[in-house]
């Protein structure tokens, strides 16, 4: 039998031409719809409720973004594990169920230095019942609130392939959800597990130390609602602020996973050796 149709012309030149045209057009089409989105909604002027200033020197003054420096201190000895902070955080950002920007862990250690950690629902429901599954004698029990460490040497921003997460000049590690492609590298990179992929927007999300509140002279929501003052936040450029006084004073402050060289701006007061 004779083949009637001639085979398509496939010399080297045509082949390369077709492949190049195809791949260039394809990649242009893929990247063109990026960006844009609902940026306009975000630019609507936010209503600033009539709330007295909590962090002096911000509202009504020029914000020299390179000059500002803030610190967060968590006093573990004051934390009672009520979970107010977790509730406030969920409400401030409408965080989807099952995801946490901040959470409170319960640490239990026994006389053999065995450490038991649990965190039912991120501490959102508080800690109503003691753990019943530990049969040995308990030596110490305490709560450890966790949130973004705002590292100076940030593992998460270094791995972002599209520049969607960054450290702002005033030291906050923030997300640009318009640019985020949801690859999840930053979530893998964060040594403190403080990032997650939002199931609705499919972009990475993290604690911002309530940057929108701080820029208006207000304390982060979790600090504002903490009944015992276990969470403290303030400017390091203000010598009268509580965090400045604590950092200047002789008290023992620790950071989480110091050996990783991330240089967090989140400090812990009274953290036991076991806290990681």
């Amino acid at each position, binding site marked *: 039998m004779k083949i009637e149709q001639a085979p398509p012309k496939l010399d080297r030149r045509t082949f390369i031409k077709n492949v190049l045209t195809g791949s260039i057009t394809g990649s*242009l089409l893929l990247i063109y719809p*990026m*960006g844009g989105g609902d940026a306009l909604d*975000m*630019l*609507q*002027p*936010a*209503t*600033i*409720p*009539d*709330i*007295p200033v*909590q962090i002096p020197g911000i509202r009504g003054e020029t914000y020299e*973004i390179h000059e500002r420096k803030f610190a967060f201190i968590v006093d573990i*000895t*004051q934390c*009672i*594990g*009520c*979970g*107010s902070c977790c*509730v*406030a955080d969920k*409400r*401030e950002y409408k965080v989807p169920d099952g995801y946490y920007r901040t959470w409170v862990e*319960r640490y239990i250690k026994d006389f053999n230095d065995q450490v038991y950690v649990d965190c039912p629902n991120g501490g959102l429901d*508080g*800690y*109503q*019942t*003691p753990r019943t599954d530990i049969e040995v004698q*308990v030596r110490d*029990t*305490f*709560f450890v609130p966790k949130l973004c460490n705002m590292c100076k040497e940030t593992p998460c921003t270094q791995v972002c392939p599209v*520049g*969607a*997460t*960054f*450290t*702002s*000049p005033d030291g906050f590690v*923030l*997300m*640009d959800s318009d*640019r985020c492609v949801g690859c999840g590298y930053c979530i893998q990179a964060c040594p403190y597990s403080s990032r997650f992929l939002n199931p609705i927007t499919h972009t990475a999300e993290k604690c*911002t130390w309530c*940057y*929108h509140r701080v*820029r*208006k002279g*207000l304390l982060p*929501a979790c600090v*504002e*609602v903490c*009944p*015992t*003052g276990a969470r403290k936040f303030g400017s390091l450029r203000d010598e009268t602020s509580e965090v400045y006084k604590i950092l200047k004073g002789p008290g023992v402050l620790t950071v989480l996973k110091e050996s990783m060289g991330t240089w967090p701006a989140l400090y812990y007061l009274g953290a036991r050796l076991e806290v990681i």
Partner: protein
Amino acid sequence: MSNYEFRLIVVVATIVVATGIAFVVKAQLIPDSFGKYGHYRADAIDEETQRPIRHGTNTSCLKCHAYEAAIHLKGRHKTISCEFCHGTYADHINNGKKIGALPVKKDTEITTLCLRCHNTEIKARSQAVIKTVAMPEHLESQKVKVTHTCNQCHHVHAPLKYINRAKQITGLMEAES
């Protein structure tokens, strides 16, 4: 013009045009403020700043709720945020107008809420920070029914308000001057 020269011009022209197109496309794809402070879009900082504030402070609540303010600010519970028990300011007030009612906890909900902080069973709570009680031992020792809810003796905004007053009346405590 020789065939060789023509080919050369075509190649050079193609490279120049392609580079030009590449620069135009690159300029189109890179957002305006990208690179102002670093390898990111500087406008993202301003956009984050624009995020709506949902939590007020106790001052914003007590500005209108003067009756509660008089009790709350005098009691041991003055450091507790209104919004933790009642919900966020933004769900209640928008542009100075009431837009919704916030829930008030009732009956056993109150006991659950109290024990969230005051339960002795959770050993992690320092007595220097918070006074804790064991249930139902506390109710038994106070000789009340075990079905009592906390707010039958303790005012939720100022837990020792009635207790102290009762002690003053019975002479167990000196009256306030």
